[in-house]
C-alpha cells in the first residue's frame, strides 16, 4: 500500500520563484504604464504596458491559486436517506430518517398512530437530490 506519490505536499521552490518574478515584472509594467498616463506620454505604449502587466498579473495569480493546498470533498460522507413506513392494515404512511438495519419490505415493530396496529413495513428507502444539483445534472 505504499506509494511513491506526493501527498499533500508544499509547492516547489522553483515554481514559487518563477511566479514571484513574474508577479514583480507585471507590477513593474503596471506602474510604468500608470506613470506614462500621469505624464501623458505615448498612449500606445502606456496601454500596451498596462495590458501586458494586467495579463501577466492575472496569469501569475492563477498559477499561485493553483499551488494552494486544496481541500478535497471525498464524497464518503453519509447521505441523508428517508425510510417510508407503510401500515399494512390502514395504509398510513410515515416518513423517518434511515436507521441502520432498515431494508425495504422489513416488518417493523412500530405502532401505527392511525389504527394502533403493529403492522408497519418499510415500503421504500431513498435519497432526495436537491433541485440545484438536478439542474446541474440536466445541464
Amino acid at each position: 500500500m505504499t506509494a511513491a506519490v506526493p501527498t499533500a505536499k508544499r509547492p516547489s521552490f522553483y515554481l514559487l520563484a518563477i511566479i514571484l518574478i513574474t508577479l514583480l515584472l507585471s507590477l513593474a509594467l503596471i506602474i510604468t504604464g500608470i506613470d506614462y498616463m500621469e505624464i501623458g506620454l505615448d498612449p500606445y505604449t502606456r496601454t500596451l504596458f498596462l495590458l501586458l502587466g494586467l495579463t501577466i498579473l492575472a496569469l501569475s495569480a492563477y498559477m499561485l491559486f493553483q499551488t494552494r493546498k486544496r481541500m478535497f470533498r471525498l464524497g464518503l460522507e453519509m447521505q441523508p436517506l428517508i425510510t417510508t413506513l407503510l401500515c399494512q392494515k390502514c395504509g398510513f404512511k410515515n416518513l423517518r430518517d434511515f436507521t441502520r438495519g432498515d431494508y425495504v419490505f422489513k416488518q417493523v415493530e412500530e405502532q401505527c398512530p392511525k389504527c394502533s396496529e403493529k403492522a408497519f413495513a418499510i415500503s421504500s428507502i431513498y435519497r432526495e437530490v436537491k433541485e440545484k444539483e438536478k439542474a446541474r445534472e440536466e445541464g
Partner: protein
Amino acid sequence: MILIPIRSLWAQFPQDWTSLLSWLAFLGIFLFSMLYGQRLQLMIILREVEGSLLKIKMMRDEARKIAIDSIKEIGKPQTDPTAQVDRFLEYFALAPVDLDPSGIIWRLEHLLDVQDLRSKDDVKLMAPQADETQRNNLENMLVWAVNLNIIYKIIRHFYLLGKKTLSLYVIMQIQMALPLIMREAEAFASGLKACQMGQPIGDGAGALVAAKLMQGYEKTKVEKDMVVAKVPLEGRTAYVLKAEGPGGNVGKPGEAMKQIIEQSEGKISLAIVVDAGLKLEGEKPGEVAEGIGVMIGGPEVEKYKVEEIALKYKVPVNAIAIKEDVGDAISPMRKEIVDAVDNVIERIKRLVHERTKEGDSVIIAGIGNTIGIGQ
C-alpha cells in the same frame, strides 16, 4: 554597403527604450513558448493529474479504513483484520484464454465462481461473528474498495510514467480520461457508505420491482442466491425472481431463468428482464424504456445462459430499463428511481396483457444488487 541594410533594419526597431522593452518582452514570450511551451503544458497537466491522484488516494485510504472499521465492528474478529484487508485489496482475477474462444463462457463462469467463493471465505474468516446479510454487505464493500485501489494504481502508473519520461503523450492519455474516471471513483466512494449501512443502491432498481411484485406470495430459493415466487398476474402465472436480499447480492439470474424454463419444458410465453440501464447525458434519472434482449449486466455469463435457453425454446425476451447514471447505480437509491418502480410494474402488466394469452406462464426477472431490499 553592408551598413545600409543594418541601418534599415535598425530603423524597424522601436527607438525609445519603453517600446524596445515591450518588443523584447514579446520576443521573449514567443521564444519561451516555442522552446518550453510543451514542457510548461506538461507541468500543468501533471499538476492536474496529481490533484486527482491525491483525491483518489484519499478515497482509497478512507475506503480501506471504513472496511477495516466495519469488519472490526460487525465481525468482531479475534485478531486485527488489517493485514487480511490489505491482502484482499491486492487480489486480481485473470481472464480466461480467448485465443480459442470455444467454451470461454463456461471457463469464465468457473473463474467467477472461484473468485466469489474465495471472497466469501475470506470475509467469513475476517468477520466470524457477522451473519450472512452482513457478510454480503462487507464483501460488496471490500470489492468496491478493491475497485478504488485499482483506479488509484492505474492513474498513479500513468502519472509516474509521464513524470519519468516527460512525455506529453503518456500523461495526456490519462488526463483525457480523468473526468470520467473521477466520476466512477466518486461513485464507488459514495456507494461504500451505502454498503456499510446496508442501504439500497440504484443498481437494485430491477430487484425492487421484482420484490414489489412478489410481496405476499411464497418464495422458493433457487440456484444461486436467487428467490422465485409464483405470482398470478393478469390471468397468467408469473415466475418472479430476484437475488436473495437484503444483503448485497446479485445472484445468478441467468441460471435461475434457465432452470425455470427447463422445468416448464419451455412452456414460457414471455420473459421480461428488468434492470437499471445506463442513461445518456440529457436523459432524466428514473426514465423507463422498453426493448428486446437480455438485459443483464456484468461479465455476460448470465446473459449468455438466458440467450441460449431462450433460443432453444424460442422464448421471446423483452427488457425494461430504468435509466440512471453510473454514480446513481452504486450510490443510495434516488427518489426518482423508487418512483419509477410503479411505472415499470404497469408496463410489465401491459406487456403481459398484450403479448400473452390467459393461462400462459411468464418470467419476470428483477436484475441487480439487492442490497437493502428484502423480498
